[in-house]
Each structure stands twice: as C-alpha cells, then as structure tokens.
C-alpha cells in the first residue's frame, strides 16, 4: 500500500528532474539546432549527394569558429566547482 508520504516524495523527485531539465534545456536545444545542418549533410551523403570542395571549405570555417568558442578557458575555479 503506497502512503501519501511516499507519493509526495515521488512527486518531489519528479519536480527536481523537470526543474533540472528545464534549466539545461536552452543549452541542449541550442546543441540540437546547431547540429541540424551537419546531420542533414550526412543524410545527403547517404542519399547519394556528392560533396564539393566549396561545401567542405565553408563547413570547416564554421566548425573552426565553433571550436574556438569551445576552447575558450573556463572561469577560474574558486573551489566550489572542483570536480
């Protein structure tokens, strides 16, 4: 028999999960949207579309810019995020 306390505890966990997902959602959504052109390009190759040198150069420039963004150093650690 499930008690009211157990149900409340379950709801609290569910709320925490939803809250965490909502907080992370913009970053995840951005990641998915940004990856869409790359996924479409791979799908095109699978369907038989041939790549051109211009496409390769343009994509590389785009990816190098995204890599530069990722390689920017993290803010210094004050001991609160050492993990």
């Amino acid at each position, binding site marked *: 028999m499930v008690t009211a306390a157990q149900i409340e505890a379950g709801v609290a966990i569910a709320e925490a*999960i939803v*809250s965490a*997902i909502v907080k*992370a959602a913009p970053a995840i959504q951005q990641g998915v949207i*940004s990856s869409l052109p790359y996924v479409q390009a791979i799908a095109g190759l699978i369907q038989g579309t041939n790549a051109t040198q211009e496409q*390769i150069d343009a994509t590389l420039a785009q990816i190098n810019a995204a890599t530069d963004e990722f390689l920017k150093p*993290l803010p210094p650690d004050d001991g609160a*995020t050492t993990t």
Partner: protein
Amino acid sequence: MTSDTIWQLIRYALLLAFGPIVARGYMSSDEVTTVIGALGAIFTAGWGVWVKYGTKATTAARRQDRYACRQSRDRQRFQHLKGSPMRKLFALAAMICGLALAGCQTTLPSLDISNAVSLNTVYGIENAYGIAVNAANAYKALPLCRTGTRPSATNICARRSVIVNLQNAMSRARLAVNNMVAFQKAYPTLDVMNVVAAAQVALNDVQAVLASGAN
C-alpha cells in the same frame, strides 16, 4: 601484331588520358567511351588504307605473287616501326596495361570516382566533427557541478575536469580534421585514408571524453 591488338593498347592509353577530363566534369564516362569508339573506327580504317597503300587490283594468275610481295612489304614496315616513335607509344600502352593487370583491375582507375569518394569521405568526417563540437559546446553551457556532487537526473551539470579533458581532445581533433581537409585539397587524386583514419581516431577520443561526462 594485328590492328585489333594495337587498337586495344591505344584504347587503354586513351582511357587513361581522358581520366582528368572526366574528373573535371567536361565529359561523362559514356561520352568518353563514344569518342574512343569513334577514334577506333577511324584508326581501323586508316590502318587498312596504310597497309593497302600502293597495291593494285591483279589478275588471278599474278595474285599469289602479289600476296607474297605484300607480306614482305608489311614485314618491312613493321621492322621500321620498331625504331620509330610509334614503338615507344606501343611500349607505353603495353606498360599501362601491365600496370592495370598487376593491380588486379579489370578496368583502369577512374579519377573522377576516386576524387568524389575522397570529397564525400572528408565531408562526412567533417560533419561528424561538427556534431561533436556542438555537443561539446552544449555540455560546456551546462552549469558546472558543485564540488563533491555528480551529474544525475536531478543534478544536470558539467564537470570541470571533463570540460578540460574535452578541450584537449578537441584541440587534437581540430588539428587532425584541418590536416585532412588540407591534404585532400593539396592532393585531390591521392588516397586520403591515412589522414581520414587520424581524424577518426581523434574524433573517437572526443566521443570517449564526452561519454565520460555522464559518469
């Protein structure tokens, strides 16, 4: 050596010579085959005229003598060929055929196909790298995990140590992918498998570090 044999050798040489034209898209493979076929017809006709040049219609009584004479003249012409530039052409064509057979190929290499394969392979790896970079950026955009906590369903966060490792792996992947593209661009007709393999290894490293972020 018959005209058929000679034509076959020349045909192989022409197929090789037309490779770059097909690669650059000026002609399709079918068009090249048609052109070479037409050249074959012209060559065969020319060969026939050359061999028969100087002969006359004869009576039945003198036909046999004429035949022996013509055979002798053909032999002399062939001997003459041995020392001429045509001999070098035949030698070149024979060498090309030998190389093709040595590589166990039933057809000569088609430069346009290999080039397209290289471009597609490089583009595919490049796009996979693009997806990895976006995944890394999405991970980095998460809040950093507090000291002593681990990522979980209720604590979606990014570990500082994972991001640092990911940055190192991403630097190597960036170098490998840029090298791959530069190689393909500089040597469009060479095999890109070595640089592609290097890029794949670097991307596998990125993927492994990304996967460790969930632990």
